[in-house]
């Protein structure tokens, strides 16, 4: 739009101060770990944000070439350490697909319960720390209180609170202890009102909406182009959930379960909170939607857990035996992705027929989700960088492996 009588080379611009190159991280409260983002800013405006990763690189893939698949399970725990169960499951399913090993019905439901519980725990951390990124401390405490309850449940089944190595190739390490299902039911009943509390503190808070709505808008095409998955992709309005759309070897686990894929399609979410419409300022693909998808998924996971508990109690038989520690693997290459809380977590195993894989590969969801950061941060304010980063919900353990 040219204005008459104005020299085209003369542009209207505001007074600008010096450009500053500033390091956000690796020691920074809101980079969610040891991430370094180099910001080139003009005053408060970010001109360029470049993430630098690798501070937590622990050579997991190299280790995977030197240990047997079952021995590698503890290493998968330490990838997305906020959702260790989902990591265990991803690797186990991948190896099971290579072995063509099917787990018993009971183990299938057990896995669903455990994995969905961990999804809630992971989303709680995401929502809580997101509040923290935006300067609100209290939701963080509420979320962590509930997460501790989930960890108590996990401690009962496997003795560990963070790195479980519970789900394993061929089933799980142990069945639920007696009385566990009642405790889980009790937790679910306690947790339901907490979701509303979090909604009241964050989702419906005007300041929260102003800080997140319309910020870091990620269009669906860009999200797919960058390989974003999980809530990040669904927050952009793509109804894509591997639990429904994934590899048959994985979706079979959820056979007979009813759940919604949480994504806003045609202007509405499959689940809606009565009296609380999506705020007008929110644009599909912005931070608010990414956050909101996670919150709704918590409720969806609760539904899945309830169904799983019912199916588990009805299922007969055992939960299967784990394979031998040094079991010989058939020759072949298998790649399998599962829907982890952060996104699609892919594992690949290349076997030459020995007990130890020739190559083990982990495709990290946070890795791809983070790669879109510089795209999202162009032209935002410094205060938006933590907001965008928090809405991507990354875990550095998984990115750096």
């Amino acid at each position, binding site marked *: 739009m040219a204005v008459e009588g104005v020299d085209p080379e003369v542009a209207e611009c505001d007074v600008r101060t010096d450009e*500053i190159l*500033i390091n956000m991280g690796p020691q*920074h*409260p*809101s980079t969610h770990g040891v991430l370094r983002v180099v910001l080139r800013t003009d*005053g*408060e405006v970010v001109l360029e944000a470049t993430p630098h990763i690798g501070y937590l690189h622990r050579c997991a893939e190299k280790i995977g070439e030197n240990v047997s698949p079952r021995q590698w399970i503890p290493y998968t725990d330490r990838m997305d350490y906020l959702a260790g169960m989902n990591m265990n499951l991803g690797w186990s399913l991948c190896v099971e697909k290579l072995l063509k090993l099917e787990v018993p019905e009971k183990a299938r439901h057990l896995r669903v319960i455990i994995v969905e519980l961990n999804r809630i725990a992971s989303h709680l951390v995401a929502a809580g720390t997101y*509040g*923290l*990124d*935006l*300067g*609100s*401390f*209290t939701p963080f*405490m*509420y979320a962590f*209180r509930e997460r501790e309850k989930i960890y108590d449940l996990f401690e009962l089944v496997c003795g560990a609170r963070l790195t479980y190595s519970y789900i394993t190739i061929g089933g799980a390490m142990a069945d639920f202890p007696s009385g566990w299902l009642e405790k889980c039911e009790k937790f679910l009943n306690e947790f339901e009102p907490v979701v509303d509390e979090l909604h009241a*503190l*964050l989702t419906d*808070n005007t*300041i*929260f909406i*102003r*800080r997140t709505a319309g910020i870091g808008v990620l269009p669906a095409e860009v999200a797919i182009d960058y390989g974003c998955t999980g809530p990040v992709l669904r927050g952009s309005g793509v109804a894509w959930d591997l639990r429904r759309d994934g590899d048959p070897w994985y979706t079979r686990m959820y056979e007979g379960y009813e759940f919604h894929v949480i994504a806003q399609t045609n202007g509405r979410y499959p689940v809606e909170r009565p009296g609380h419409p999506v705020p007008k300022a929110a644009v599909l693909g912005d931070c608010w939607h990414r956050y909101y998808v996670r919150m709704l998924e918590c409720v969806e996971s609760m539904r899945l857990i309830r169904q799983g508990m019912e199916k588990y109690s009805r299922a007969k038989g055992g939960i299967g035996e784990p394979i031998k520690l040094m079991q010989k693997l058939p020759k072949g290459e298998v790649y399998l992705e599962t829907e982890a809380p952060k996104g699609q977590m892919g594992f690949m195993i290349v076997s030459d027929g020995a007990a130890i894989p020739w190559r083990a590969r982990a495709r990290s969801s946070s890795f791809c989700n983070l790669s879109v950061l510089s795209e999202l941060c162009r032209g935002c*304010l*410094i*205060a*938006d*960088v*933590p907001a965008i980063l928090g809405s991507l919900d990354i875990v550095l353990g998984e990115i750096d492996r």
Partner: protein
Amino acid sequence: MADFLAIWLPSWLALTLAALVHVTLILTLALTAAAAFTWAERKVAGRIQDRLGPTRVGGRFGWLQAVADGLKLVSKEDIIPRNADPLLFRTAPYVSFCASFCVYLALPFANGWVAQPLDIAVFFVLAVAGLEVLGVILGGYASGSKWSLFGAMREAAQVVSYEVPLALCAVIPVMVAGTMDLVAIGNMQAGWAWNWLIFHNPFLFITFFIYFTCAVASVNRAPFDLPEAESELVAGFLTEYSGFRWSVFFMAEYASMFAVSMLAAILFLGGWNGPLPITVWLGLAPNPATGYEPHALLAYFGNFLGMVNILIKATLGVLLMMWARWTLPRLRIDQVMTMCLKYCIPLAAVMFVGTMIYLYAFPVGLIFRSGGG
């Protein structure tokens, strides 16, 4: 007080002594308030977050937590970064503290209980309170860290902007009262609660809330704590500070929180006068209707009750700020500025004009009976 001491002492000694006593009293109050509020902050935060807060130090309620914190801070290593400007880095906390502390010089705690009675006390308080930002800017710049510099710049932008609506809001009760003398403003709100200036007219009622919002912003409390903004700027201007210097900044923050709350209490909430004229009933305060003048000792006791009253009001204001801090997310810098320039200033101006028209239309006021001092 100086006149009282001058009966026995040479006047210069009397003046010095009186000044010392005043300063000691105010310092004690400011520091005690800071300590008490650190503890209260932790306790309030704990309760809001469904946990207990401090429980170990000093018995069940952790009364001595503030002392423990203080000891810890004092015994921490004092670090001055290599890139810092050592002189300014060292001076900055004290500049901040002095500014927020000097405010108390002109703040009355009860009828006539003020360190330095000034007939332009409101103006003085606003002028001095605005100087706290100097220390923050110096500290942020002298740290030689970019995060600190960002924090300082934010502080400058924010505080300098919010001074305007804050002063505008403070002027409105001044206009109603017809004086800038805080003692006089406090005294004219004696009697029942409807004599408080906040209930003088609807515009003043709204003004109080604008004032409080701007006050929260000008002392950098959440949701306006952008200069610190721990999730964005690490710790803003405080990033490079540690130990004692950090705690001086911290005390300055609490002192000014308390100061703006006290100013709010005097300007809007009746100052040292309770909602009921209890002191008049008990014969502890002069009764204008009967011309009763209490004995000096009784008046002293009445003033003491008044001081308790105003301290409670100011503390409630601080607690309100804490509540907001532990509930709300932080605003973004442009939103903070928008709020100031687009909403607070125009609203305050409208309230100013509204009050002016109201005063013109109802010179004696509708329910405000003892107006005009």
